[in-house]
């Protein structure tokens, strides 16, 4: 809703509709949590509409959650890397 609202206010024209398989078209969305954090940081108008403080809090929480996840060594790493690298 926030994205759509900004579109109405800024009168943003969309691309033409597609009837192709959109999965084959170029990727445009972040595909990791880290990339998503960077995308949020790059859009001040969006941060403003969500609330400056909320955006800082949310990004801070997500950065911390990512770090917590990254500390975990998975069974995949033990299985495939332990004796091979």
């Amino acid at each position, binding site marked *: 809703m926030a994205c759509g609202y900004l579109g109405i206010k800024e009168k943003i024209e969309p691309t033409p509709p597609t009837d192709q398989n959109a999965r084959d078209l170029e990727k445009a969305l972040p595909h990791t949590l880290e990339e998503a*954090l960077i995308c949020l940081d790059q859009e001040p108008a969006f941060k403003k509409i969500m*609330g400056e403080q909320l955006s800082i809090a949310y990004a801070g929480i997500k950065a911390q959650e990512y770090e917590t996840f990254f500390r975990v060594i998975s069974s995949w790493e033990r299985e495939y890397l332990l004796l091979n690298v």
Partner: protein
Amino acid sequence: MAEISKELRSWIKENKIDEIEALVPDMTGKARGKIIPAYRFLKGEGVRLPEAVFLQTVTGGWPAEEVYRALVHPSDRDMFLKADSTTACLVPWADEPTAQIIHDCVNAEGSFHPLAPRTVLRSIVQLFTDAGMQPIIAPEVEFYLVEKNTDADYPLRPPVGRSGRPERARQSYSIDAVNEFDPLFEEMYDFAELMQLDLDTLIHESGAAQMEVNFEHADALSRADQVFLFKRMMREVAMRNNVFATFLAKPMENEPGSAMHIHQSIIDLKTGHNIFDDGGGELTETFRHYIGGLQKYTPAAMIFYGPYVNSYRRFVYGDSAPTNVHWGLDNRTAGLRVPVSASENRRI
């Protein structure tokens, strides 16, 4: 003193409510709050929570020191909880008559607390109201039923239904596969009725014991509240039926992911008509701009749609999750899909 509306007072009395759960949806969409005897709640002494509940991570940790310091009052002060009486409903699984009431968070100065997710939604809805518009939302919530998993080191397994066998084949839209869990879904509907949740359709999704529940369309705040209450109820119902319900985006590596689709449209507050359509089936300028906004800002909003590391395991080729922001008419492969619909139901 916290004001309690007349309607809420009489509702509490009529239903002989013994306890009140004062709920606040946190950053993860889970319930925080306090459980209070009804007589105390009615005294209107108010309920408080520390501001810091909105800064906790899903693992119970905290963001970096400087973030915390920048956002939390140096005295680590309390927020005041304000009951939204329109959200009061029964807790069907409680032994004593218990009510759950969603609360807004208000700071010492009397304004909605900027870190409460409900405040954010309120402020965005207000922007639309100020522009003479009202967003209409219909959520579709996907989830898995899985065998109870008490040791997190083991992968999840599909649950055993009435047949005594776990589900194997892909059962998209299968009625019989839903019936495997009949007692569970009977209870889900009973509870939903007691809680006055506007559940619409229940279908079996493509994963093993993966389900989808659709909600009727309505204003955005009521839909957010109902999804919050539903997830809480569904986890409870599953547990009572000896399985788990999980809303995790990608719980099993060889099964499809779960999502929440959001049908969205906007009505003109003056005329009551859907402003995405000119009434004759033609898409309007406002519709185009709304799509344009979704295309431009969705990458920035992704962190809200995909809030966890696990969410991104779902954005893989062919897993009916979008990797871009193209839009299309009845094009299921596009991230922004405009279903075939009559003018009044024109939606994204």
